[in-house]
């Protein structure tokens, strides 16, 4: 029983991490049709910024997380303004440009801080464990879940209650119609990129807590599973991404533990293939 609880908590923590990456990816894709290959790199930027602030900068953990998120958001906005915006008329080239950034940014991080994993300082309050139903679960799992839940609620509120949320939702449904109604969708594009970058870099800063270290290829490794989550959840759907990321995280953890290591990662991919064969439009029935 205690093993099941521990695995479930770890799986949910991992799922929370996937959600932080996938929610932004999903929104960006839903609104702009851009598959952002640089999203993993943004996560790494957030992770390294937080790590730098916590070690060299000497700030406390929470301030470091905030710093990492701010830096990641700025990088994301810069990416949208400098690279994506001039390529609006060439959709495939937008994807290719993000591929280039996704290659270059981790390489730059590797050049500055080396390819080895750097230990991430763990604050005393979060390095302990709690007893839950007979299992001892590390506290950082719950931090991740809380962060993902907060992002989910905030995103739902933003999409449902604000004017820009309305524009984003309308843009996901039919971008041409929103433009035809005289609304400048470009500002929504930048906004969505900022939100996605913020969520991903927050995920990066917390990934340092979850894995105990940061390394340049962490983001790219997570990105692949985030893609799986986005396809499963239906592109452009935040709730779909939440459901799919929980499923993927749990399946991965349980399969990795109860079968051979690595089979969990494989089973996620098989799950995706089966789902696409049965429901080619993803869980929520949106476009794929």
């Amino acid at each position, binding site marked *: 029983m205690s093993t099941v609880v521990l695995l479930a908590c770890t799986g949910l923590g991992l799922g929370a991490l996937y959600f932080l990456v996938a929610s932004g990816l999903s929104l960006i894709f839903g609104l702009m049709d851009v598959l952002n290959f640089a999203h993993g790199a943004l996560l790494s930027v957030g992770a390294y910024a937080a790590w730098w602030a916590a070690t060299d900068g000497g700030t406390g953990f929470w301030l470091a997380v905030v710093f990492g998120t701010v830096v990641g958001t700025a990088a994301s906005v810069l990416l949208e303004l400098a690279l994506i915006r001039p390529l609006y008329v060439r959709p495939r080239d937008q994807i290719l440009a993000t591929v280039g950034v996704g290659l*270059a940014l981790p390489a730059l991080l590797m050049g500055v801080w080396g390819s080895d994993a750097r230990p991430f300082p763990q604050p005393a309050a979060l390095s302990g464990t709690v007893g839950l139903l007979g299992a001892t679960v590390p506290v950082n799992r719950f931090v991740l879940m809380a962060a993902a839940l907060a992002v989910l609620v905030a995103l739902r509120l933003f999409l449902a209650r604000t004017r820009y949320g309305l524009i984003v939702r309308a843009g996901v449904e039919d971008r041409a119609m929103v433009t035809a109604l005289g609304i400048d969708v470009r500002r929504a594009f930048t906004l969505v990129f900022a939100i996605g970058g913020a969520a991903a870099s927050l995920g990066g800063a917390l990934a340092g807590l979850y894995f105990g270290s940061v390394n340049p290829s962490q983001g790219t490794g997570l990105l692949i599973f985030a893609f799986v989550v986005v396809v499963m959840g239906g592109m452009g759907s935040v709730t779909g991404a939440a459901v799919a990321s929980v499923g993927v995280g749990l399946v991965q953890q349980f399969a990795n533990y109860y079968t051979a290591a690595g089979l969990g990662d494989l089973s996620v991919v098989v799950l*995706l293939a089966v789902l696409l064969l049965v429901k080619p439009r993803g869980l929520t029935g949106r476009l794929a």
Partner: protein
Amino acid sequence: MTAHLKRWWPLALLLVLIAAPYSALPLPGLLDGPLGSPGSLQLIALCLLYGGLATGYDLLLGRTGLLSFGHALYFATGLYATDLAMLELDLDLLPAALFGTACSVALALALGAVSLRVTGIGFSMVTLAFAQAGAILVQRNPGGYTGGEEGRSAPAPHLPDALVGIQNTANLYWIALAYLVLTLAVVHWTTASPTGRVWAGIRENERRVEVLGLRPYGFKLLAFTVSGALAGAGGVVYLLLTGGATPQAASSDATLALLVMVVLGGSGTRWGPLLGGVLYTWAAHRLGDLANSAAVADLPAALRVPLSQPLFLLGTLFVAVVYLLPGGLAKLPARLRTGRTPTAAAPAAALPEGAA
């Protein structure tokens, strides 16, 4: 005279490439040793191999309009299946190579049949997921077959004597050249065939192909399988050239490298992917040397750090090509020609972008 030159230059270039191992021409800056030395031949052979692989990949990207992110899987299948057939099944090189390529074809057929059920970007993601599954499988070393991180080296006893040892690099070089010629021939022949015209139709407007009464699915699957077969054969050549199978061949970075090559050279053109593959491979090797050179080590940190990362330079170069040079290097002469008469070129250049 120039018409003759235009028509026959590929043949002349081929003859020069065939004769290259007999030459001792030094190319300082381009190559470390003289042209015919084993080190140079090895590098040129890798360049030619990747030129061929990029050309095969462009059959999907530029000819059929399918953005696959899983091409490395079929390359790695050819590589590992051939190696394992020699190691575990005790086959000789030729049957093992046929077995390896057959495995690539079978896998491309099976996974293509599944992935092509979704269209557009969904297809890209599904191919990426399958390739990632392959990469994980190779890394985890199931049953001790794939050798995990270290990979498996090719067994020398099963290889013909003419392909073993540094003095025989020229033979490997000719094999790589033969692979490139084969790939170019297959791509040229298939795209010129009626099937190739349907591929071009799918690339331009898939809905319209359907309206004409053709089912795009079968044609796309054929393109996927042919491309997978070419990648598998490339894996065999890679095994011979590098003497072993390593998990880097299966990684998603390997597919991204192919994508960079194709876009750099010019997707959908006859010589563009070849040019991109050769340039990328050469640059990746030379930049690696540059990164370790004394000249870079003496630079201030702000310059040294980016210059010491080949992937950073290549990624930046890629963004620059996408941004400034749509159509890749193959379209550069045409762009320069129109650039000289700016008044006439401006509306012509603006039209396709607006139309897109």
